[in-house]
């Protein structure tokens, strides 16, 4: 059978640096194909060429056996290749139907928009896909997961038969991800080809039929997922043996590090109590919007709790603003490093020093040698790959950016580390390193509280797990006494 999409020898360089040397890919109709690779493997370049954003330097793309060439995303879409991007960009003040038919609105006899036909067609499309979204709803009232479904509907309204999904689950919860997967299964049954790009291996094994691995800009291998196991796939992605995915080196002590009792913030969280011990990695699991991040916001002074007490090393503390929390030795690695973690336009060095500026300038004037050595220390300690520490942090890969955020907080030598999705958008290799950093910190007596929506990660790393559901605690469980199913069950 002729493949739906066949790519061979795709090449692309940026300013003399090869981003993609040999992109090869073959997609069958009616299948889900996972595109895997670490950061910098060439996946994004590959996607942007197929989308028509970048022009290829060499290679062929065959769509249903015919060579194609796109110079814009619109052209790619017209020929039937659609991409659901990681960060969606809907028009929020327009309805679902208007978004789906943007730029192709059916017109009435007098040249106006035929809203009736548009809404009817959109609704028919959504119903066919069983998305249970109203075509007349405004985009801004939808959840991220629903917006993704609308994007999929939009792609299908263009008669697309190849649909790329770039990290579609990075911003949605476990339950919504399952909805997405059933939508993907329906598309597959309709004979579409879906290319699934994700760092989350468990999802790949759940949803995809076959895989292609890129590494360092080149094709490494491809095959059926039925013929490979998880360690085997990791080995291909990373290019070397990594051993166990989660190695725990910490042992919880009996001393309480962080005690939280009766923490409440109206409309966000209610009556949250837990004790994280020194040397412990305390996990918090829950869906998006279940109040996970809100706990951290209250602990770190970003938000004011209406009631509740916080004790550090047995001492009651009062935290009104982030600087109070920092003075008590709390560090907070936020959920989205680009939005709340880093100043992307600034250098690696300045970002590392960002949370320690008063300490580095006792007399108002910055001590530059101190900054320099602090940044050099953190770069060495966490093996941050940067050409110079004066380069903008935006030029680093996701994993290295995340290590810069960790460096910023470790520089303060914290007692308690609050981690919100510490490995989101980070490749397998860098994930290991981050796990090692977290474990080392706990092993040396630090207290770690970690939020994650990746169930393997939370089970693999945590000593105990607090499950959040609708702003309330659904119980605390030891890692031995629980499993993925019961966590998902408790959280929904």
């Amino acid at each position, binding site marked *: 059978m002729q493949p739906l999409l066949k790519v061979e020898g795709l090449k692309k360089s940026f300013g003399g640096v090869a981003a993609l040397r040999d992109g090869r890919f073959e997609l069958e109709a009616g299948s889900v194909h996972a595109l895997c690779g670490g950061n910098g493997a060439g996946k994004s370049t590959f996607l942007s060429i197929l989308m028509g954003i970048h022009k290829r330097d060499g290679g062929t793309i065959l769509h249903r056996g015919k060579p194609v060439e796109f110079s814009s995303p619109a052209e790619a879409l017209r020929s039937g290749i659609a991409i659901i991007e990681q960060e969606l960009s809907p028009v929020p003040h327009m309805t679902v139907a208007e978004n789906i038919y943007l730029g192709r609105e059916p017109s009435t006899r007098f040249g106006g928009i035929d809203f009736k036909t548009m809404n009817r067609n959109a609704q028919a499309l959504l119903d066919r896909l069983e998305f249970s979204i109203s075509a007349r709803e405004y985009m801004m009232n939808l959840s991220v997961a629903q917006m993704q479904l609308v994007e999929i509907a939009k792609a299908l309204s263009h008669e697309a038969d190849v649909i790329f999904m770039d990290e579609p689950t990075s911003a949605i919860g476990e339950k919504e991800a399952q909805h997405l997967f059933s939508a993907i299964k329906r598309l597959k049954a309709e004979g579409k080809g879906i290319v699934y790009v994700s760092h989350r291996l468990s999802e790949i094994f759940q949803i995809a039929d076959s895989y292609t691995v890129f590494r360092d800009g080149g094709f490494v291998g491809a095959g059926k997922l039925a013929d490979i196991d998880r360690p085997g796939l990791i080995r291909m992605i990373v290019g070397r043996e990594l051993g166990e995915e989660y190695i725990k080196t910490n042992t919880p002590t009996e001393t309480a590090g962080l005690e939280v009792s009766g923490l409440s913030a109206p409309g966000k969280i209610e009556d949250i109590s837990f004790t994280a011990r020194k040397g412990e990695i305390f996990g918090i699991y829950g869906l998006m919007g279940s109040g996970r991040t809100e706990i951290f916001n209250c602990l770190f002074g970003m938000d004011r709790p209406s009631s509740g007490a916080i004790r550090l090393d047995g001492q009651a503390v009062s935290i009104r603003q982030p600087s109070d929390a920092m003075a008590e030795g709390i560090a907070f690695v936020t959920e989205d490093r680009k939005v709340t973690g880093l*100043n992307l*336009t600034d250098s690696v060095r300045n970002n590392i020093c960002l949370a320690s500026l008063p300490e580095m300038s006792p007399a108002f004037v910055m001590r530059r040698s101190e900054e320099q050595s602090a940044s050099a220390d953190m770069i060495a300690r966490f093996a941050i790959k940067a050409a110079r520490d004066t380069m903008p942090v935006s030029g680093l890969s996701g994993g290295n950016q995340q290590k810069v955020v960790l460096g910023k907080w470790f520089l303060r030598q914290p007692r308690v580390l609050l981690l919100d999705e510490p490995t989101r958008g980070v490749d397998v290799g860098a994930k290991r390193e981050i796990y090692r950093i977290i474990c080392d910190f706990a092993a040396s007596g630090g207290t770690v509280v970690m939020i994650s929506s990746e169930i393997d990660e939370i089970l693999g790393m945590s000593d105990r797990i607090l499950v959040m559901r609708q702003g309330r605690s659904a119980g605390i469980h030891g890692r031995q006494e629980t499993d993925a199913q019961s966590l998902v069950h408790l959280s929904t």
Partner: protein
Amino acid sequence: MTSIENKTASSWLNSDRRRLIVQEYGIFLAFLLLVAILSVSNEFFLTPGNISNVLLQTSINGVLAIGMTFVILTRGIDLSVGSVVALAGMVSASFVTSSATAGIAGAPYPMVVALAAGILVGVGCGALVGLIVSRFSVPAFVATLGMLSAARGATLIYGGGKPVPALSPEFRWIGTGNILGIPMPVILLAAVFLVSWWVLTRTRFGRYIYAVGGNPHAAKTSGLNVTRIRFMVYVISGALSGLAGMILSARTGSALPQAGIAYELDAIAAVVIGGTSLSGGVGRVTGTLIGALIIGVMNNGLDLMGIQSYYQQVLKGALIVGAVMLDQKRNQGV
């Protein structure tokens, strides 16, 4: 001068590293190019008298533009500087004029009192705007637009719509005097520049400003008091507007109610030409100074060539837009 030009031309095509240098110092090279062209085409341009004149013309806009740089670095804008110039100029002048003119008992006061009054007016206006922007989250554009109107009105009320003569010679010395032949306004601009450069590049507060402008959320999670930093930049811009207002009154010998109209535009232009990003977090006060000098040199050069001031405005408009277009292109390239 010509050797520099040749170097620029060749490096544009050659190595990446040289291109980086051009990107980094492009504005400085553009300035040198402009100076080179003018000195070749007009023998009067490079005379000490004319240089001193250009610097003098640039000094007020330079001081305002430096204050504006602080604000724009935090993603803000200050449209009120021209009106604050007028108000501060008038209030300070009223302290050194005869009591009959200004209605201030005991005037004329010593220069120091007038200086303090002018700066205080600027600080007060800046603090009010800063409070509105930082505490009440009113967009800077709106808050300073309000102050642009209010401070102008206050100037008219304060002076009864009439000019106030600044009689005291020691006060007038700030605008007309010189030290070792260097005009006082130029010395003040140099001082303001040096202090600002030091604050922005060497101190904790400077780091705060870049962090707040680059990513206010990240700044907040890193424990910075974003509200206070936002407040402070408007106070700085206000204080420098106050200083500029006094220089203006001292130079002209009289505080006019319509002084400083549209000065905010030249100040913003200097900042933008100097490469500071309106989206915050990126920019340098050195660039701003050169931006102000480019505007000053261009105006002067066109004057020397006998080109009408109407055309100068059109050219300045083109220059601002062109500078930002180049900046956009260079940001895409990186």
